[in-house]
């Protein structure tokens, strides 16, 4: 029974019986795994205060040759991200991203780039380097790129007319096709969104722009709002399920 040691981010935890936890970990070396942390709820030494969602850990787990779940042997806390857990808005955003990753990843599928992206956005969120909304757009654009369902924001999905050549400032985006539609090709599409050229350009920047520059750029607020609404419709549509955290996030926004 091999023992594996790897950095990991805790995506989810659920109670199992009176004392145990089942944790879903996004590991650096082995992608997503679910493991059982025995006696985690009563342990004052091994797991005390460590197994909290979004925390970056160094974990050691033993895989089972039989059908059972891997068993978590040890976990050391590397980054607790305590400012995230002390802020309901940050917690809601981090929960949304964690749910997207958890829903999309298959068990045991190594995803180093996505791991690094998630750790980086959590770090920025914790340190207040960028507004939550901006970080969320940045995460979703790069998440889609890495996951293979990046939207076509360059040209019409039907006739391939470039976005710059489209006359109107507002351009239609087809959620089903996953791309832009020019004025001539709009008909027949039911699941549409309208985006301004400015929002589209800003979204394209978020996919590949420099993180360090993002902290200095003043993004247009209407474009951030429009981009956020668009991504929060497009990403869950292509994952096939709306994350629960997204409903929570919308409720929080209504409160403010």
């Amino acid at each position, binding site marked *: 029974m091999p023992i594996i040691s790897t950095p990991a981010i805790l995506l*989810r935890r659920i109670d199992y*019986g*009176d004392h145990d936890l089942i944790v879903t970990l996004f590991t650096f070396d082995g992608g997503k795994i679910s493991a059982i942390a025995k006696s985690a709820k009563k342990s*004052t*030494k091994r797991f*005390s*205060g*460590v197994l*909290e*969602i*979004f925390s970056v850990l160094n974990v050691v787990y033993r895989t089972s040759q039989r059908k059972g779940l891997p068993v978590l042997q040890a976990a050391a*806390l590397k980054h*607790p991200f*305590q400012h*995230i*857990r*002390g*802020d*309901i808005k940050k*917690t*809601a955003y981090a*929960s*949304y991203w*964690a*749910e997207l990753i958890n829903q999309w990843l298959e068990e045991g599928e190594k995803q180093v780039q996505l791991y690094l992206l998630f750790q980086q956005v959590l770090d920025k969120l914790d340190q207040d380097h960028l507004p939550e909304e901006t970080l969320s757009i940045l995460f979703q654009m790069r998440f889609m790129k890495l996951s293979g369902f990046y939207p076509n924001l360059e040209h019409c999905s039907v006739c391939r007319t470039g976005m710059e050549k489209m006359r109107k400032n507002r351009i239609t985006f087809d959620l089903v096709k996953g791309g832009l539609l020019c004025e001539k090709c709009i008909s027949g599409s039911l699941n549409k969104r309208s985006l301004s050229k400015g929002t589209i350009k800003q979204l394209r920047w978020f996919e590949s722009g420099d993180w360090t520059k993002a902290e200095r750029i003043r993004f247009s607020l209407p474009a951030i709002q429009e981009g956020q609404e668009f991504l929060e419709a497009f990403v869950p549509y292509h994952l096939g399920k709306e*994350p*629960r*955290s997204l*409903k*929570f*996030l919308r*409720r929080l926004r209504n*409160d403010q």
Partner: protein
Amino acid sequence: MGYYPTPVVHLIQNISKLPGIGEKTAERLAIYLLGVPRKEAEQLAGSILEVKDKIRLCSRCFSLSDNPVCDICSNPTRNETLLCVVEQPMDMVAIEKSGSFLGVYHVLQGVLSPMAGVGPDHIRIRELISRIEEGTVKEVVIATGTDVEGEATASYLAERLRKRPIKVSRIASGIPMGGELQYVDQVTLKRAMEKRHDL
């Protein structure tokens, strides 16, 4: 299971529905119950029915009660200006056992959890706000857990109560009595160090 008579099978099935009890334990408990005197079995069955019939939530604090208003809320010696917010009735009992608090409580009946889909409308936050709006409460002590959900709930409540003319405090966290420093996580240690006190 097929080896037991049907009533025993039913008993095993019902016991195994209890949290943390698997089929093996349920089997052992069922065989034990078969061996106890009838009076003892009747007392157990009666107790279960009694709590189902008599126990309700206190209309003030939402803790468990056998009256419309619980003993703590109806006790005139408790300090009504000091309100402690907890997640569950068991948390309230834990604080009561410590003997350290003489105010009144508000049980949220849960905790905010974005991933579990538990939002502000699913727990007793609206009732807490209404209670504070009555004007008696001068300080709210938020005693939700220190896990992510508990901390996030505390943050949400603090934000909602920020503009009101009351003091809002958070229960302290630190090194447990008898705890060894080497096993304490760094978040707890940091907080314990920040909140150190003079001797």
